[in-house]
Each structure stands twice: as C-alpha cells, then as structure tokens.
C-alpha cells in the first residue's frame, strides 16, 4: 500500500484541529497548533479552502466545526436525559462541550464516547447538593448505556439453585451477569430518577448513601435500589468470592443476625435468578443466539 502523502496528512491534521476547536473554526485557524501545520492558512485561508459564491472559507469550515460538537452533544443528550434535567440545558451542554474537548472520540462507534462523563462531572462540577445528585444520576445513566450493549451471560435458573447441595454451596462461585452494574451512591438518585422520568415532581434530595443495581433482562434495561446487605452480597459475588464468603460479607450489613439474613437469602436468589441477574461461571460468556431467549445451560 502506498504511503500517505505528507501534504494530505498535514492537511487532515490541520482541518481536524480547526473543526474541533472549542471556539469555532476562526479561532481554530488562528491557533498555534494549526499555524504550526499550515502557516499559510493563518495568513490567507483562501490558499487552503476556497470560498464559494455565497460563503467565505471560514464559513465553510464553520459548517464542519458546528456539526462536530452538535452531533456529539446530541448523542450525550440522548444518553443523559435526567442529568441534563438536573443541571439545566445550558450547564449540561457546556459540560458536554468541555468533556468532548478533553476526551474526543477515539473509537469507530459512539458507544463509549461518554464513558468518562460521570468522572468528568465529579472533577469539574462545583460543590453542592445539585452537583452531587447530577453525578450520581450520570453514573446510573452511564451504567444503563453499558448494560444495554453488554453481552448477556448464560443465566442461572432458580431450578438449578435448588439442585445445589450444601457442600457445593460453600465453595460455589456465582457471578452476576456481565450485563449488570453495581453502584454505591451518595444520594437516593434512583428514587429521584423514578420520579423525574415518571413525570412526577422531583426535588433535589438531601445526601444519603444508597445502592443501585442496573441490569439487563433479555433486551430491557432495569434499575433497582438495593439495601446494604444485598449490595454487599452481589458485590462480593462480582469480585469472584465463593458464595459462603459472600454471604459472610452480607451478614455484616444485616445487623449481624444470621437467621434474619438466611430468611431473606432464598427470596433474593429467587428474585435475582428470575431477573436474569446471575450466571454460573465457566459457562459460555457470550450469547450468540439469533432469538430473544437465551439458551438454557445444561443442568449441573
């Protein structure tokens, strides 16, 4: 394959600097980075980009510059509707623009474009209750995007749980589905989202720690608030701990009452297996079927 002409490489790098400049194409042309690549463009832009009868060279570059941010902000707006509501349109778009400026897309698809947005908000939003809520909601909305695209594991079915013997329980490692995310938050953000997305009045809540699981069952994304023991149990399973060790960790968050926890465990597993939240490790991890229902794993 022939090598890229150096003039073409220079021109492409120059154009990318110009059309991605946060202050627009004119500022991009005048920037030191662009000037270092094509100084003649800074002196006379028409030596690089021709004007048309009705548009100047800068206007024409400006079309691409406008579309660059508009398109990517539109993607993020679709991904973070409740975060946007909390921050307000102007502050949200300003945050998106700054995020894109510092974290431009490096992939062919847009799925991961905003993966770092919640962390970016954590670093850059001013202190305050509204910001804390916005960050928590952004983490939930990002998790929803992640599980939407994640592979589905082969789900553990409740019938299989019943066949597991007592000795096996001690060392068994049950893992949450790959399409599941656990979030420890500083606010009751999931309750806020339920109200906001349900069209109810939603007030910025006082900070209070909460735990949320976001997961996909078949092709629908769900989110639920968990209590501390549930969160500890799922987190420990996610970390690969044997079930017995995971239950011991959950016990610490269950006011130390083994009988109380034991009474609840059966219900949790019934619930979680029905929701497709658990899988048995060692099974094929990626569902490649052509229909909606996941193939059933062989019985143990």
């Amino acid at each position, binding site marked *: 394959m022939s090598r890229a002409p150096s003039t*073409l490489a220079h021109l492409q790098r120059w*154009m990318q600097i110009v059309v*991605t400049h946060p202050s627009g194409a004119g500022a991009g042309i005048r920037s030191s980075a662009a000037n270092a690549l094509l100084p003649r463009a800074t002196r006379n832009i028409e030596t690089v980009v021709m004007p048309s009868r*009705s548009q100047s060279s800068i206007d024409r570059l400006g079309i*691409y510059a406008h579309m660059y941010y508009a398109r990517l902000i539109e993607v993020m707006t679709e991904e973070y509707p409740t975060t946007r509501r909390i921050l307000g349109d102007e502050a949200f778009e300003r945050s998106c623009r700054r995020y894109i400026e510092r974290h431009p897309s490096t992939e062919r698809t*847009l799925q991961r474009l905003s993966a770092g947005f919640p962390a970016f908000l954590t670093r850059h939003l001013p202190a305050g209750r509204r910001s804390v809520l916005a960050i928590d909601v952004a983490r939930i909305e990002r998790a929803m995007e992640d599980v939407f695209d994640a592979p589905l594991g082969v789900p553990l079915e409740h019938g299989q749980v019943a066949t597991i013997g007592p000795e096996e329980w001690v060392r068994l490692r049950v893992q949450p589905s790959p399409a599941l995310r656990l979030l420890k938050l500083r606010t009751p953000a999931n309750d806020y989202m339920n109200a906001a997305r349900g069209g109810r009045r939603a007030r910025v809540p006082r900070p209070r720690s909460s735990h949320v699981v976001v997961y996909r069952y078949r092709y629908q994304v769900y989110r639920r608030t968990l209590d501390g023991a549930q969160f500890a149990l799922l987190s420990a399973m996610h970390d690969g701990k044997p079930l017995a060790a995971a239950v011991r960790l959950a016990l610490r968050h269950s006011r130390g009452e083994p009988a109380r926890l034991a009474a609840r465990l059966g219900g949790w597993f019934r619930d979680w297996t029905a929701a497709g939240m658990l899988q048995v490790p060692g099974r094929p991890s990626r569902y490649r079927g052509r229909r909606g229902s996941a193939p059933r794993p062989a019985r143990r």
Partner: protein
Amino acid sequence: MRNRWNLPDLGLGVGLRTKHFRHITKHWPEVDWFEILSENFIDTEGRPLWYLDQIAERYPIVMHGVCLSVGSTDPIDFGFLDKLRALAARVKAVWLGDHICWTGVAGVNGHDLYPVPYTDASLRYMVSRVKTIQDYLERPLVLENPSTYLTFAASTMPEEEFIARLATESGCALLLDVNNVYVTCRNHDLDPTAYLDVIPYEHVVQVHLAGHSDNGTHCIDTHDGHVIDAVWELYAQVHRKAGARATLLEWDAKIPAFPDLQREVRKAARFRGQRGRARAPA
C-alpha cells in the same frame, strides 16, 4: 446497463432505524430491503442486534458505514474490518460500503464525513487503501459520494472525476447519492447534470435518496424531510443512464412513521416504470 459485479437490483428499500424496529417486526411491511448503519450494530450485543437478526431472516440487508475512513492518513483499522466482516456474515449482507471521505486522523474520530483534496496524490493513496480493504474483506466496497461543504484550493480535478477514477482504478462499486450530488453542487456552484455525466454507471450498484435543509447560502444533508423535486429529477436522469438500481430512502431526523417512509420511497417506482408497490417479505 448491468453493473460490473452483477449485483442485484434489490428494488426499493429504506434505512433501518431504531424507531421502526417494533413496527417492522410486528407488521413485516412491504419493503424490498433494508440498509443498516454498520456502526450501530458493532460493539453491542443489545436489543438492536436482536431486532436485526429477526429482520435479516426476512429481508435482504445492505451494510452502509460512516467510519471506515478510506481517505484518512491513519493506518487501516483491520480490527474494525474484522467486525464488519463478522456482521456481514451474521446478516448475510448483500454488499457493504461506506463513503469517499475521511472521518478522523491521529487516532481521533470526528464522526463526520470530511472531504479530501481532489489531487492525483490523494487519488493514488485512496485507490491503494480501497484495494487493500477490498482484498481483506474479499468483496468490493460500495462507496458513496458524500455531501461536501468546502473545496480545497489544492484540488486539481472536480469531485466527480475523482470519484470516477477512484472507481475504475480501485475496482470499487459506487453508491450514488443523488441528494448528495444536489447538495454538493449547490454548495460548490456546480451543475449536477454535468456531475452525473461523468459517473461510470457500470460501477453503480445502489442509489440513495434523501431530504436536505436549504439554508439559502448553502445546503446541509440533514436527511430530515421529503425528497425535493429537483432531486427526483436527478434520480430520473440516473435511471435513464444506468437502468434500475437498488434504491434506498434515508431519513434520519424528524423520522416519520414507517408507512410514510414507504410512501416516500415508492415514489421512485414511477421513474423505474413500476407500480408503487414493493415485494412482500420472504
């Protein structure tokens, strides 16, 4: 006129969009084929792929991408080509393609279709890239003329000549977007009929139709409305020159209900000497 590869005239199709998944899988509407945006089904194992699997069992699927970046001076991303190939096998894509453009450089993706300067050096480079990609994918690429909004002073040939030479020298197929021809010619003060005279029609396997926004000083390829009469006239010219080619309506913003899309694309039938009905799905 046949195309060089004897690729079929698929009839009248529409772009597959998320908004219509439920309608399509509930009603299995009369439309000849669907075109997908390849990147929407890559790096995901979610619901879109589940719908696509069902739709691909009943309709021919064509893959059309926006990030292949055949004109970029960055190295070819063979990992991405592997993903395209896997998706093409999964949906039994009749063909796959992208645009005559670059979308990013230095590892950054602008997710837009940027033009190259139309020079001999750019042409040689892009011919070489297209050949490499075609060899790797073991099939012809179907490349589309993009809507462009600027002209580089370095260009030494008109866009249509660049495209014609790219097709003949690389052996790629062409997707002729007649709306893009209209938009580009408006933006560069060119004559669209003269543009169409230069296209090598034996390379054309597909035609795109779409709406655009006319901002007075320039047009933007927004895919947000009906096909205007001037674009239908260009489509008629293409049909007279090339004969029937797989024809697809793109509508990506302010997307109407599916039956409205069907009505819009069926207008193409009158230029093809057909009644305005598509085949029922298999």
